[in-house]
């Protein structure tokens, strides 16, 4: 018979009466993710099933599913009629490609199936052993598990692989946030982390042309698009930051550059968030990683906004952030060597522990409202 892909969901099963809402969201997100493939998508008890697809696209479909938050795992399965011989033959055929240790697991939703689960597993295992001498049995920690799922529909699903997916909650189930994306390694990871928890994302980027190149902006667009794949697309707000940087550079003490920049970025982000129904700002800050991410600096930048600022990486080591960025495939793009706006006019000795009062005194030298107004009126919006 044919192949199908089973999709198992994650945390949703912990939900109570409102579970249906989450299921619906997940279902819609999955359908959106695989909309370009010709296939049938179906809900079965506690799981989803994809069938009637061209087998050559199996990996591609799984790749798409790997970007849908709320899915726990998927397995490509063989489908056979629920009779003893067909199941055994298929299991033997699949196991022919395996080597090492294995076990057989049977689930019998169809209680009319004539052999008990445990007995059937043993029987299939015996047949596999007879046909493949590269395999031996290990029921505790086998290299491979041949899973047999005898369903009430008269069909049996057989699979050996479980691909772990994103987990988390369906996108859209946890509100909407605005990701401050810089072009570095951390911010795309921060976006991914929030997307995993079901937050819909928009993103804001500050660029400083001509001090930064168009390549830097293109890189951010690429990264934002990659993050957007986890939230069914996103809107990127690109803000020109040149004037603000020039003014700070001209009027304020050199060491306050980054501290003041961060405050401007926060305020501008808050306005964008409010104007677009976004409920939180998300940053890639990690405590103590750089001068602008000490607790004092975070206090200084956080104090200018009322909206929640979510910092999913706050307690992560760089090495762990890099691991995630490699997993979500943003790392290679993040390390492309284009200047981002944080490194222009970089002071030799940025403030590590800014004093809020002194920061405010420096800030008063600037026409903050007018600068923010100008920056906001220059916004370019890119749908990704």
């Amino acid at each position: 018979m044919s192949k199908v892909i089973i999709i198992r969901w994650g945390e949703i099963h912990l939900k109570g009466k409102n579970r249906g809402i989450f299921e619906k969201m997940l279902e819609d997100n999955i359908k959106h993710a695989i909309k370009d493939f010709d296939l049938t998508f179906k809900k079965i008890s506690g799981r989803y099933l994809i069938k009637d697809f061209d087998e050559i696209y199996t990996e591609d479909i799984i790749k798409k599913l790997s970007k849908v938050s709320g899915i726990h795992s998927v397995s490509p399965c063989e489908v056979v009629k629920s009779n003893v011989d067909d199941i055994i033959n298929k299991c033997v055929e699949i196991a022919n490609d395996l080597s090492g240790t294995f076990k057989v697991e049977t689930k019998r939703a169809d209680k009319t199936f004539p052999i008990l689960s445990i007995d059937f597993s043993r029987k299939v295992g015996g047949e596999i052993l007879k046909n493949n001498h590269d395999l031996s049995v290990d029921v505790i920690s086998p290299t491979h598990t041949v899973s047999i799922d005898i369903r009430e529909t008269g069909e049996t699903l057989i699979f050996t692989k479980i691909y772990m997916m994103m987990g988390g909650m369906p996108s859209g189930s946890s509100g909407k946030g605005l990701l401050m994306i810089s072009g570095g390694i951390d911010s795309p990871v921060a976006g991914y982390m929030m997307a995993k928890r079901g937050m819909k994302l928009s993103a804001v980027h500050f660029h400083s042309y001509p001090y930064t190149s168009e390549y830097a902006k293109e890189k951010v667009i690429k990264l934002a698009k990659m993050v957007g794949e986890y939230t069914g697309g996103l809107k990127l707000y690109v803000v020109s930051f040149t004037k603000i940087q020039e003014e700070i550079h001209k009027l304020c003490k050199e060491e306050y550059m980054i501290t003041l920049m961060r405050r401007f970025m926060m305020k501008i982000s808050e306005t964008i968030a409010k104007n677009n129904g976004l409920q939180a700002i998300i940053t890639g800050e990690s405590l103590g990683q750089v001068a602008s991410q000490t607790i004092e600096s975070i206090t200084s930048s956080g104090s200018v906004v009322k909206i929640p600022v979510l910092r999913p990486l706050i307690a992560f080591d760089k090495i762990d952030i890099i691991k995630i960025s490699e997993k979500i495939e943003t790392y290679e793009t993040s390390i492309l060597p284009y200047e981002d706006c944080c490194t222009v006019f970089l002071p030799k000795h940025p403030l590590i522990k800014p004093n809020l009062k002194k920061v405010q005194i420096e800030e008063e030298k600037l026409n903050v409202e007018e600068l923010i107004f100008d920056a906001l009126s220059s916004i370019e919006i890119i749908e990704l």
Partner: protein
Amino acid sequence: MIYLDNAATTKPDLNAIEMSNYINETDFFNPSAKYHGGLITSGIISKAKESFSKIFGSNFEVIFTSCGTESDNTAIFSYARRGNAVTTLGEHSAVYECYNALKKAGYDSRFAEINKDGSVSIDSLLKQIDKNTVFVSVVHVNNETGAINDINYIAKKCKEINPRLIFHSDGVQAFGKINVKLSNYVDLYSLSAHKIGGLKGVGALIKNKNLKNLKPYIIGGGQENGLRSGTENVFGIKIFEKVALDKFNNFERNFNHVKNLNKVFLDGVDKSVFTVISGENSSPYVVSISARGLRGEVLQHKLESCGVLVGTGSACSSKKPHSRVLKSAGYSSDILDGVIRISFNYDTNVEDVKFAVEKINENAISLKKAMYNL
């Protein structure tokens, strides 16, 4: 728009394209085809080869390739896998990275030092050469500074030490711009079409007819006498022939014109802001200058907004390494940060150069004011 990045690429010669368009319309046949059409297109290639023989003399023959980089790779990997191979620190990456790859593979790759203007230190080069040297590659015109290496003289000197070595030169920035009369000491010479008004995707390897055992880098159907397989880009080759002949026939006129542009430019550049990196004996087509303490890329963007396109010799970012060549030439990082490269074409207008130099001065000064609160 004033385009002064002609060392990166030149605007294709529309006249040559139009005159060659019949190859796309009627004579589109595969040159290897055995019917009449194939004979016509293979004839177009033969004629192009004759034209290149006219330019380089009958001691040399041409192998058409896809680009200068392919020509360099073909030459180097064909011979440099024995003994030791010598090149300079002033090479384009197309040569430099081949030598690096050989070094990584365990071969003896040697790099000669360069002078401040980017030309090779001949003493350093000759010291690296010994009886085991099989291959020497020296760029004719450096792509960043325009420094000219006297390859005929250098090839002769190299062969005095070891007559059996093979001498190659990357002539991508020289051909069609400066005098490229090759002596018999030069064995191989790389060209690229798009640097002189041809199309991207076409290059050539000029080969001394005395040279034996050149191995193809791309094998297959045996085109180009088995030295470069793959269906020939007849259209691109035809245009390359036309622009090459045009540059050859108008060499003096173009050279004097560009020399004048170069003088106008260098006279106009504000020396209190800029350091001139290109030496006096460089190709007039390329000028490298540095706005000390500024970032070349930022100045490049500023100029772009004034309608002037220039190249950068180095990166603007602290994360990106400086120009390898200029670093080897011994410049400090405040100079390396601020490098921009201006490169002319034969048809660059003197008024445009005057406007550009004005904008270059103006923007560098205003940027300096902004960056340093002057």
